[in-house]
């Protein structure tokens, strides 16, 4: 089976080569049969990659330690789920997942792109094939997951205990679906540059693909953040770690792309900018892959360091980023530019959004790459952390967030800021009220915290105002506006829900950062500690066995005002003997939207234990907001207008419904 997997991977490389060359030449010479090769080859390539991936997963599930990769990253005593997720919990396997998703997206384009112009489809799939070729080569040359060991070891070396968690099952696949999903936008852009024109089909296709990638990337980042929060035992949700930034940069650029694609779709303006943004977004995904996989950074994600890999990925990076940008420089001037427009308008607001988001992306990029550059060019070693990003990223985000509620309320072509402001009076009043309530009624609230709360409520109420205004609340009878609300296009709901999610995430951040409490102390069994008005009793440490580890469970009891037990929290330290590693399993109890977070430290000689306890108000909203943003994205995606070929049907339906649709 393992050899079949290896063989399938080599075949997939061969097919990727065909997929790259034949349709490209076919589109050039106008040969229908050559262009028609692209579809079946792409789908077969996906099937082969899936076979290869399955072969590796089976080797993992069976604990076949004759495979070097399995031996290094698995153990026979691991629970089955971690055996399977261990498939991508290592460098080689995660690259295989990367190409699996790449070929999956290629196959989706091949299957659903039946009504794309033939040359466009051929070129898009050829570019996908080129990316595939590069990464298949990378895997086969530098990171073969199927290498055998002889004689086969009896027992494996275990998966890194930090990765033995359900997060590994969700975080990498979601993140890669996002990262690699942007490859489709990239391929569409490069194909448009090769053809030298941007046709209507191009504009219609880019937005849904951007949305799909964005939804998954949002989910991947949110899950990764929550995983780091509970697994590392530091209680933080974002560390501005270069590896986190690597996923955050494509998200920021992708968000900008999502918004500029709207302008392109509705007003056929900003075409060239959108195209460039699509190239840059995927370039940032590639840069992220390079930063994480090359070993230039030390982190949980850098599974192994091998200089040849770094050089190889750097070459891929330069080839694709340099190549696409060079093509852009050569060809952009031949593309028909879009129309001009008034600065005060929906388009203008979306341009402003792009200005802020791309600048923010640039600051994150500089903060991430600058230390590497300094280290390469001088003997100094520096690190850039939260203080830098607080000083640069935050001032860019605040005005952007202030402007968000205005955008959807401005009309296309020529907007009226005053009218929009009038409609936002209620939202503004609510935000002001939230800020005042925070300042007056919450002890120790700083002005900054109050403003943060106000900003979060401004976003949330602004999003609701958008829906209310479009449903005509206040202008028409309530039952009419309720009917209108239901009849609103889903993309309008999508916008409002996604912006609302942003507000919720901000609210969670402000709550956690400004109103959280923290205690670090050494506790004996039976002692009680007070935190944020709650009493917590430590009942002692109890050892327990696990499948491939032993753990010390620290039991804590939450006491109510009367001193009776009202809940239990268990915080553990696990020891994995194979890797001689200890991990912290934070004890978390969710109360409403807030959480009590307990992490255990070392045991003292006198039997006491160092305990770190946090009270994290509204912390779950940070990730909950991300989930809401995903729902918003999905709503937008479900809009009939985005379905290729659907506009005609929708028009008929609207007419039948009495023209209730508002757009």
């Amino acid at each position: 089976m393992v050899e079949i997997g290896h063989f399938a991977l080599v075949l997939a490389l061969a097919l990727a080569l065909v997929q790259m060359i034949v349709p490209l030449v076919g589109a050039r010479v106008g040969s229908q049969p050559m262009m028609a090769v692209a579809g079946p080859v792409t789908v077969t390539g996906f099937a082969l990659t899936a076979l290869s991936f399955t072969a590796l997963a089976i080797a993992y599930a069976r604990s076949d330690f004759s495979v070097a990769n399995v031996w290094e990253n698995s153990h026979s005593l691991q629970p089955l789920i971690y055996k399977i997720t261990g498939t991508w919990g290592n460098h080689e396997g995660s690259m295989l997942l990367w190409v699996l998703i790449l070929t999956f997206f290629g196959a989706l384009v091949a299957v659903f792109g039946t009504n794309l112009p033939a040359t466009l489809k051929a070129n898009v799939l050829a570019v996908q094939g080129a990316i595939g070729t590069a990464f298949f080569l990378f895997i086969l040359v530098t990171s073969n997951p199927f290498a055998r060991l002889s004689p086969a070891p009896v027992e494996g070396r275990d998966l890194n205990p930090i990765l033995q968690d359900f997060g590994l099952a969700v975080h990498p696949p979601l993140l890669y679906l996002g990262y690699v999903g942007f490859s489709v936008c990239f391929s569409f852009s490069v194909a448009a540059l090769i053809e030298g024109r941007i046709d209507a089909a191009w504009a219609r296709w880019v937005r849904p693909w951007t949305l799909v990638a964005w939804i998954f990337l949002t989910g991947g980042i949110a899950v990764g953040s929550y995983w780091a929060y509970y697994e590392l035992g530091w209680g933080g949700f974002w560390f501005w770690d270069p590896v986190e930034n690597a996923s955050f940069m494509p998200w920021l650029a992708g968000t900008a792309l999502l918004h500029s694609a709207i302008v392109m779709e509705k007003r056929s303006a900003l075409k060239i900018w959108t195209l460039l943004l699509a190239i840059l977004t995927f370039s940032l995904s590639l840069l992220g892959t390079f930063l994480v996989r090359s070993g230039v950074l030390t982190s949980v994600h850098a599974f192994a360091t091998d200089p040849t890999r770094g050089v190889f990925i750097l070459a891929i990076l330069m080839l694709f980023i340099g190549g696409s940008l060079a093509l852009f420089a050569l060809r952009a001037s031949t593309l028909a530019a879009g129309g001009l427009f008034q600065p005060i308008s929906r388009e203008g607001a979306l341009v402003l959004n792009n200005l802020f988001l791309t600048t923010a992306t640039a600051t994150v990029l500089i903060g991430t790459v600058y230390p590497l550059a300094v280290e390469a060019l001088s003997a100094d070693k520096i690190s850039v952390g939260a203080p830098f990003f607080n000083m640069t990223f935050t001032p860019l985000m605040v005005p952007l967030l202030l402007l968000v509620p205005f955008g959807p309320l401005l009309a296309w072509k020529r907007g009226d800021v005053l009218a929009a402001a009038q409609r936002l009076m209620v939202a503004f009043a609510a935000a002001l009220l939230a800020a005042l309530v925070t300042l007056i009624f919450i002890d120790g609230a700083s002005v900054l915290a109050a403003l943060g709360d106000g900003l979060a409520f401004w976003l949330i109420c602004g999003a609701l105002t958008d829906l209310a205004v479009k449903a005509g609340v206040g202008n028409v009878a309530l039952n009419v506006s309720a009917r209108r609300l239901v009849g609103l296009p889903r993309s309008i709901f999508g916008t409002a829900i996604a912006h609302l999610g942003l507000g919720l995430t901000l609210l969670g951040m402000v709550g956690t950062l400004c109103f959280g409490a923290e205690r670090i102390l050494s506790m004996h069994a039976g002692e009680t500690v007070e935190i944020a008005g709650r009493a917590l009793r430590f009942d002692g440490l109890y050892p327990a066995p696990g499948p491939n580890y032993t753990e010390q469970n620290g039991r804590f009891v939450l006491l109510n005002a009367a001193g009776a037990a009202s809940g239990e929290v268990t915080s553990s330290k696990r020891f994995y003997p194979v890797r001689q590693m200890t991990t912290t399993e934070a004890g978390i109890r969710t109360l409403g939207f807030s959480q009590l977070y307990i992490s255990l430290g070392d045991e003292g000689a006198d039997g006491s234990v160092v305990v770190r306890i946090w009270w994290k108000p509204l912390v779950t909203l940070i990730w909950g907001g991300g989930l809401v943003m995903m729902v918003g994205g999905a709503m937008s995606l479900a809009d009939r207008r985005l379905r290729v070929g659907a506009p005609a049907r929708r028009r008929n339906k609207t007419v039948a419904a009495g023209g209730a649709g508002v757009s």
Partner: protein
Amino acid sequence: MTRKQKRLSVIVGGLVFLAAATGLTFYALGQKASYFYMPADLATATVQPGQRIRLGGLVEKGSIVRGQGATVAFAVTDHEKSVKVTYTGILPDLFREEQGVITEGTFGPDGTFVADSVLAKHDERYMPKEVADGLKAKGVWVESESQ
């Protein structure tokens, strides 16, 4: 305003915005980036009291003293010089004697390094990169020890 003036003002506005963002970024890099030192580097480097730096090296054997509550004192060494460090909080799971660590914080008035974060390597195979490079440059650490 004419069409031309309007366009010009948009472009100028955009450039001013970008210039401000660039200026802020480089100012922040100058202010907020923290430098990495090994104990022996500190003899030649000038580090102001209160300036945030990262100090890396090995945890000196026999230097770990657990004090009152959650405060721990230990020494970071590169086998040339060593620096006393205090830290209040929970040490990383992989914090041990003779283990590579990076501590981040400031020097107190008495010359002790007061760390507010301590990073150890993520698993048993890897040393923090800066520490490994630094020790290699000093000839203290050889590749095979990493396994």
